[in-house]
């Protein structure tokens, strides 16, 4: 009989996860992680284990979980193909600053480097796409490595961490005590605010007559929604949000001027090139936001607030940098700056809003006849759903339509793949979101392309009764690419038209309630049905096949040159 106090490395890993407060893991088993799954069997009551249908799904689910909850998501997979299947999700988490920890099996230490069965150099593969990637070779390392992994993933600018867990370490028996790490001497996750920078920013803001704030994902990551609101209200500054920052400021806030970027709103894009001081908060001047850099906000003094020093000047050269946690730095700015009012400047956004409404929004959202449009479906869903619903999107026209027309009422309401633009992100991310925010309704918008890119996760939804409300905006096209082909390649529609399966039968196969909307008159009732049904639902909307999303900053163009049609 085993009377000693030792446990296996595999068990130690789970105890370490529990000590970090992990309540859910998204997992897929295999030979070199089987010992961990054996240990999971003993933790069926204190650790929720969601068996996904593909390891990419595990990583996106972990992301969805993290994005809505603010806690680090966890995926457990096997070595080799299991591990390589996580690469897309890890990259996505890196670009969108999402805290996840991926634990992958690895061959035993004596087989490392021999091209053993299902051996790949995961640390080598993932080093460029993680905050930290580490191979656990001995069980003695587990406490330290797990504590360090969670500290790194969740602190500062969050991101993915990979733990490559050798069989040797899984099998070893050790006496285990979890560790806690909140300090690494080579790592400063939250730099202290710098007095001179704060004062320089205050001076610029106080002297500005036409200031504009750009709200990024960093505001939500820093839990600084309240500080942001106080800041813009005191100085009376209009604010625009990036795709990932959309829910950091409620849609109906008086100072909210809409969305930035390629398919954002007209006014904030045009005003970017008219403002005198541009205050960027927790955003990274992605090229989808800036358009051509050489003509981007040249007239403005630029203040850049970020927690990550390497973002300063990476794309846009700031005049004043404000390093630090934006919750602290915004608070300091608000304290020190004077109260002011920019009524005329704010009013000047209105004609542009009206122009956009007349030229595109009205047509997209209130069509009187013709086929259904994406915008009206999104609007109807947003109107009927509870105010704290979470919007999850896939990638493409559906994403742009959903993000433009959804109304954001509470923080952490948008989960979308911004940096990597990963088709297939939506379904698993939405599953993760149902576990990260079980009390909120999760609304998942797809195109027909992206729906099929991780369609196997319908199995996960079925098995767990995950209450994902799936809205499939079916245009029978890889619509976003079709639009570009129309616009830039003389409408030579190469490999973008797609024959679709009968989604009704697919829904039936997974025992998920389904409704098809082909006609405008059916929309309200179908949405009502979707929302009132408990559990998952698929609402397929047969939308106008050749609809384009407008307005648009064409690639290579300036932010203030938005077009309204092709």
């Amino acid at each position, binding site marked *: 009989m085993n009377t000693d106090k030792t446990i296996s490395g595999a068990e130690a890993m789970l105890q370490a996860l529990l000590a970090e407060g992990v309540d859910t893991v998204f997992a897929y088993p295999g030979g070199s992680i089987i010992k961990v799954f054996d240990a999971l069997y003993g933790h069926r009551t204190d650790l929720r284990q969601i068996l996904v249908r593909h390891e990419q799904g595990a990583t996106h689910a972990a992301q969805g979980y993290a994005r809505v909850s603010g806690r680090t998501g966890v995926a457990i997979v096997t070595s080799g193909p299991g591990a390589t299947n996580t690469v897309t999700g890890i990259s996505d988490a890196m670009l969108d600053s999402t805290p996840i920890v991926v634990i992958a099996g690895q061959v035993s230490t004596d087989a490392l480097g021999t091209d053993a069965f299902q051996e790949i150099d995961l640390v080598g593969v993932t080093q460029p796409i993680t905050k930290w990637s580490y191979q656990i070779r001995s069980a003695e390392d587990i406490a330290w490595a797990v504590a360090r992994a969670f500290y790194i993933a969740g602190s500062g600018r969050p991101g993915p961490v990979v733990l490559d867990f050798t069989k040797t370490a899984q099998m070893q028996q050790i006496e285990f005590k979890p560790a806690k790490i909140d*300090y690494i001497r080579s790592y400063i996750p939250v730099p202290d605010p710098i007095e001179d920078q704060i004062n320089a920013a205050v001076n610029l803001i106080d002297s500005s007559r036409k200031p504009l704030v750009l709200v990024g994902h960093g505001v939500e990551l820093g839990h600084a929604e309240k500080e942001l609101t106080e800041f813009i209200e005191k100085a009376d500054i209009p604010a625009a949000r990036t795709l990932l920052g959309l829910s950091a400021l409620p849609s109906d806030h008086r100072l909210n001027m809409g969305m930035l970027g390629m398919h954002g709103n007209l006014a904030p894009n045009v005003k970017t090139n008219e403002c005198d001081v541009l205050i960027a908060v927790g955003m990274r001047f992605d090229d989808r936001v800036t358009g051509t850099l050489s003509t981007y906000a040249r007239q403005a003094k630029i203040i850049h607030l970020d927690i990550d*020093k390497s973002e300063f*000047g990476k794309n846009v050269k700031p005049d004043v940098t404000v390093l630090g946690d934006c919750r602290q730095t915004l608070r300091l700015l608000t304290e020190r700056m004077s109260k002011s009012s920019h009524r005329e400047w704010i009013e000047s956004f209105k004609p542009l809003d009206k122009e956009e409404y007349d030229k595109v929004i009205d047509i997209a959202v209130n069509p009187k006849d013709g086929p259904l449009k994406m915008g009206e479906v999104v609007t109807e869903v947003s109107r009927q759903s509870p105010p704290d619903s979470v919007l999850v999107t896939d990638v493409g026209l559906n994403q742009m339509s959903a993000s433009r027309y959804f109304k954001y009422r509470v923080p952490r309401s948008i989960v979308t793949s911004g940096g990597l633009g990963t088709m297939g992100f939506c379904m698993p991310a939405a599953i993760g979101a149902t576990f990260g925010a079980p009390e909120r309704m999760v609304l998942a918008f797809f195109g027909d392309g992206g729906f099929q890119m991780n369609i196997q996760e319908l199995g996960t939804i079925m098995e767990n009764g995950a209450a994902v409300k799936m809205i499939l905006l079916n245009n029978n096209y890889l619509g976003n690419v079709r639009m570009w082909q129309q616009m830039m390649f003389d409408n030579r529609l190469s490999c973008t038209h797609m024959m679709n399966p009968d989604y009704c039968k697919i829904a039936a196969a997974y025992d998920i309630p389904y409704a098809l909307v082909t006609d405008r008159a059916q929309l309200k009732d179908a949405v009502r049905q979707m929302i009132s049904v408990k559990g998952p639902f698929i609402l397929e909307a047969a939308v106008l096949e050749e609809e384009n999303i407008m307005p648009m900053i064409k690639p290579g163009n300036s932010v203030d040159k938005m077009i309204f049609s092709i």
Partner: protein
Amino acid sequence: MIVHSENIAGILNQVTAVFTRRQVNIESLNVSASSIPGIHRYTITAIADHETIMKIVDQIEKKVDVLQCQYFTDDEIFMQEVALYKVVTSVLTENPEMSKIIRRYGAKLIEVNSTFSVIEKTGPTNDIIALNKELSKLGGLLQYVSSGRVAITRARIEHVNEYLEKMETRYGNN
């Protein structure tokens, strides 16, 4: 550029990958222990404009296990390079020019045997390259290797020590 990092496998890769992504060639790279136990020191020479180098510096420093990354222009550091030249001994003995060159460059012979001899030269990069040229002109140069630059800053404060002290006082009880 001088980088200090923890002694953890894989950092070299991460550091060089930043240069590759930014399309800047590394002219020379030296990795060694530093004056602080357990901390590695990388001396990297590269040619790029100030802005590009600053972006590289920030991206390297962002790596979790990198303590500090700083860049210096030539006038801010003392730098040296060591080179070894392997020559055919008969050329050395038969051509008096070669001994003259060795003396002129302040190089020294560290091995002489019947087949080959080894010349060592420590000095600035330019001298090392020039010596290589002169020796190859005479013929009989079998091998040439140089260490790449190693450098010491001229500053009166030691930045890494200062950084570590700051971290210690701030988070000392950890």
